[in-house]
């Protein structure tokens, strides 16, 4: 019956979409939102260094150093819980 089949497909599609969104939320953010925000901030900062100021050496040092700071920060947060 088309009347009952149509909402069924719609609800299935909505559930699949919600599931897909939830997967990406858990995958990227989950219980460590500080890592997602931190990575975005670091990449923007490095982008500004390389495109606006052409400071390659600073970017080469900043990127891994910032990643280590992010790791230390998230570990500290976890250890305090």
């Amino acid at each position, binding site marked *: 019956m088309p009347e009952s089949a149509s909402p069924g497909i719609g609800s299935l599609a909505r559930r699949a979409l919600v599931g897909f969104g939830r997967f990406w939320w858990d995958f990227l953010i989950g219980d460590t939102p500080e890592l997602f925000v931190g990575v975005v901030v670091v990449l923007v900062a490095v982008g500004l260094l390389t495109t606006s100021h052409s400071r390659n050496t600073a970017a080469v040092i900043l990127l891994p150093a910032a990643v280590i700071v*992010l790791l230390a920060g998230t570990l500290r947060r976890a250890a305090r819980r």
Partner: protein
Amino acid sequence: MPAAGCPVAALPGPSRCQTVTVVATVHSSDLVLVAAVFLACAVEMVEALTIVVAVGFTAGWKSALQGTGVALLVLAALVAALGPALVHIPIDVLRVLIGGVLLVFGLQWLRKAVLRAAGLKAKHDEDAIFQEHISQLEAAGKNEQRVGFVMAFKGVFLEGLEVVIIVLTLGATSGKVGLAALAAAAALVVVGIVGALVARQLSGVPENAMKMGVGLMLVSFGTFWSGEGLHVSWPGSDLAIVALVAIYGAAAWVATTVLKRTRAQAAPAVEHA
């Protein structure tokens, strides 16, 4: 340099000589890529295999294999749909986006592995997960086969989705999706054989050490590719990936040692309290 017997001025387009030259040139980044994909896929596949074996022993191998087969088909369709779409994204944008995803994902893995190594988080116990799935299936009663199918499908699909993301992201940024897929296939074969041989003793796999290694490599690739996308010129080119693995490895070791020491100092204080 052209391969032996090849003309110096090769014609444009793929030729046997060019193929030989490409095969002969093995970059250090290729080895790190293969190792990263192989280890990441092996870890995810061990987790999926635990669920499939639990379903197989309890609800029967028919449901377990059907669930696994359908999940693999859906994953293959996803790869077929997403893989070619990645080619249309500008390479710098792709590298920044994928590098960012690898950084976040890799840092999550590294965080968990360091916390587990320091004793601040319980280790992933395949035996406990195996028992948990068996209890769920036994509670399903008459619907055991249907629940078994869904359980095997979900286990393989969710763990497989992570494998697909790792293969596509690492492969696409380095332009070596084929090599990444080969490494994943090798992991599938190895884990499959080991799983068939040891069956229920998957807890013997040194999962945390593997996760630590994968975390280090994902973070290193993420740093390298996001940097490349942002026009960072890495000293030593591809060799920078190996240097990044060493730097992050040292940082993870220091973090584990510090956390272990802090935990050891806190333990007597808790006992006296």
